[in-house]
C-alpha cells in the first residue's frame, strides 16, 4: 500500500515536470491553430489553451507570406550542403588526430586550437566578415553562407568524430599495415566503416545547429540567401504584426528539427555525450 502511494506521487511528479518542460512549446503549438478572432478574445476570464475551433488559417497565411518559400528552400540547401562539406572535412582531420598523429604534444596542441576555435563567439569575426563580404560581392549569397557554416561547424565536428575514432582499437589498423595495406586503404576500408554511426551522429548534429543558427545569417543575408530562422526572427519587427502567423511560422520551422531529433535521438545523445566527455 505504502509502495503504491509512493509510486503514485512519483508518477505525478513525472507528469508535472514533463508538462512544465513542454508547456511553452505546447502553448505555442495549440494557439497557432486559433483563428484571428478567437486569438484576440483569448484573454482573462475567457482564456483557454486548446483551440475551440481549430483552423489552419495561420499556416495558410504563412505559406502566402513573401519570402517564406525562398527562406525555407535556402535553409534546406545551405544546411544540407554545409553539413556534407563539414562531414568530409571533419572526418579527414579527426582521423589524423585520432590515428595518425603519434606525437602526444602535437596532438594536444592541435586539439586545443580546434577546441578554442569551436568556442569562438560569432561576434568576434562578424564585423570583418560583413565588411569583406560586401567588398567581395559575396554578401547575401548562399555560397558564402555554406562556406561559413562549414568553417563554423567543422571544429566541433572534428571534436565529435575524434571521440568516435578513438573508440576503434589501433590493433586492427596495425595488423592491416603489416599486411601491406596503405594508410588511405586502412582509413577507407577499415576505420571509416566502423565510425559510420559517429559520422551520422555528427551530421545530424551539424544539420540541426546550422538550421537553428541566427546571428550570422541575420547580418550576412538580406533577401536572396535569407535563411528560415532570420525570416521568422524578423516577424517581430514587421509592420502588420500577426501573432498567429508568427506562432505558426515558428512551428513550421521547428518541425523538421524536432522530427529529426526524435528519430535520431539515440545517435544525437551519443554524439553530445562523447563530444563533451571524451577529450
Amino acid at each position, binding site marked *: 500500500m505504502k509502495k503504491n502511494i509512493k509510486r503514485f506521487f512519483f*508518477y505525478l511528479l513525472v507528469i508535472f515536470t514533463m508538462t512544465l518542460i513542454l508547456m511553452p512549446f505546447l502553448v*505555442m503549438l495549440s494557439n497557432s491553430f486559433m483563428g484571428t478572432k478567437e486569438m484576440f478574445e483569448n484573454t482573462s476570464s475567457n482564456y483557454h489553451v486548446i483551440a475551440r475551433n481549430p483552423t489552419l488559417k495561420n499556416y495558410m497565411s504563412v505559406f502566402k507570406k513573401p519570402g517564406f518559400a525562398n527562406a525555407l528552400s535556402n535553409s534546406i540547401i545551405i544546411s544540407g550542403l554545409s553539413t556534407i562539406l563539414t562531414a568530409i572535412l571533419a572526418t579527414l582531420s579527426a582521423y589524423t588526430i585520432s590515428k*595518425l598523429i603519434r606525437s602526444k604534444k602535437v596532438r594536444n596542441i592541435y586539439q586545443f586550437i580546434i*577546441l578554442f576555435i569551436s568556442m569562438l*563567439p560569432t561576434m568576434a569575426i562578424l564585423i570583418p566578415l560583413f565588411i569583406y563580404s560586401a567588398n567581395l560581392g559575396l554578401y547575401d549569397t548562399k555560397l558564402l553562407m555554406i562556406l561559413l557554416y562549414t568553417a563554423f561547424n567543422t571544429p566541433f565536428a572534428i571534436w565529435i568524430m575524434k571521440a568516435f575514432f578513438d573508440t576503434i582499437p589501433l590493433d586492427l589498423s596495425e595488423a592491416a599495415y603489416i599486411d601491406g595495406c596503405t594508410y588511405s586503404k586502412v582509413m577507407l576500408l577499415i576505420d571509416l566503416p566502423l565510425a559510420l554511426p559517429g559520422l551520422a551522429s555528427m551530421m545530424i548534429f551539424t544539420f540541426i545547429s546550422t538550421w537553428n543558427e*541566427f546571428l550570422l545569417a541575420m547580418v550576412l543575408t538580406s533577401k536572396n540567401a535569407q535563411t528560415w530562422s532570420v525570416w521568422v*526572427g524578423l516577424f517581430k519587427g514587421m509592420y502588420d504584426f500577426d501573432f498567429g502567423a508568427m506562432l505558426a511560422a515558428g512551428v513550421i520551422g521547428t518541425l523538421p528539427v524536432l522530427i529529426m531529433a526524435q528519430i535520431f535521438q539515440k545517435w544525437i545523445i551519443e554524439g*553530445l555525450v562523447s563530444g563533451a566527455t571524451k577529450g
Partner: protein
Amino acid sequence: MKDIRKSRIKMIFALNVPAVTVILVLLLLPLAIGFGYTFFKISFMKHSFKFIGLANYIEAFSDSEVISSIIRTLLYSIISISMALVSAIGMALMLNKDFVGNKICRALIMIPWALPPIVNGIAWNWFFNPRYGFFTNVLLKLGIIDKPINFLTGNISAFIIVCIATVYWLLPFSIIYLLALLKTIPKSVYEAAEIDGASKWQRFTKITLPLLLPGSGVLIIWLAIRTLKSYDIIYALTEGGPGRATTVLNYLAYSVSFKTMDFGMGATISFILSIMIFLFSILYYRFSFREYSY
C-alpha cells in the same frame, strides 16, 4: 620503416589541408582582422579607417554601459547555470529510475534542445504576453494578480524571464550529460551505504552529489560558454530591453556594431568577450582531460 613514417606524415598533411584551409581563411583570418579593428575608429559609410591606438579599450573600460553589461553577463551566466544545474540534477535523478514511460520522457526532453533558439524566444515571449500569455492568465484565474502584468517590461522580471528561457534551452544537454555521469557511479557504492544504514537523503548528499560534482566541471564550463555566447534568445525575447536591462555583452557588441555602426568599438567589445571565452576554454580543456575513479 622510414618510408612508412614519411608516407604517414604526408598523409597527415594531405588530410588536414581542406579543414585547415577553410578554418584559416574563414575564421582565423577574420579573427585577426577583427582584432586589428580594435585599434581603429571605423566609419563604414565613409570607408574611413583612423588608427587610434588603445583608445577603444580605454573608452570601453571607462564606459559604464560596457561595465554594467559585463556584470549583467556574469549575473546572467551564474543565475542560468545554477538554475539549470539544480533542475537538471533533479530531472536526471528522476529519469535515472526505472518506470513505465521513461523512454518517452527521455525522448521528449530533447525538444527544447532541438527548438531553434529564435523560436524558443518567440515561445517564451508568447508565454509571458501580457494579454494572451499563459502565465498572466493563469495567475489571473488563480486570483494571485487582479490586473494583467507585463513581465517583459519590468527590469528584474525581464531579466529573470531571459534566464528561464536560457535554462530551458540548456536543460536537455545538462540532463543527458548528468545521466551519463550517473551511469558511471557503481551500484556497489549505494549497496554498501544501504547496508550501513544510510538514509535516502544521506545517500544523495554523501554519495551522488560528491561523485557528480567533479565530472560536472566540464558541464559547468560548457554551460558558461554557451551562456556567454547567447544572443538569439535575447533578441527574440526582449531585444536587450527594457532599457538595457537584458543587454549582455554579446548583445551589446552586436548593437554597437550593427545598430550604431561603430565597428571599432564593436570589435573591441567582441574581443573582450572572446578573451573571457578563451579563459573558459582553457579550463574546459583541463577538466575534460582529467580522469576520475570511484
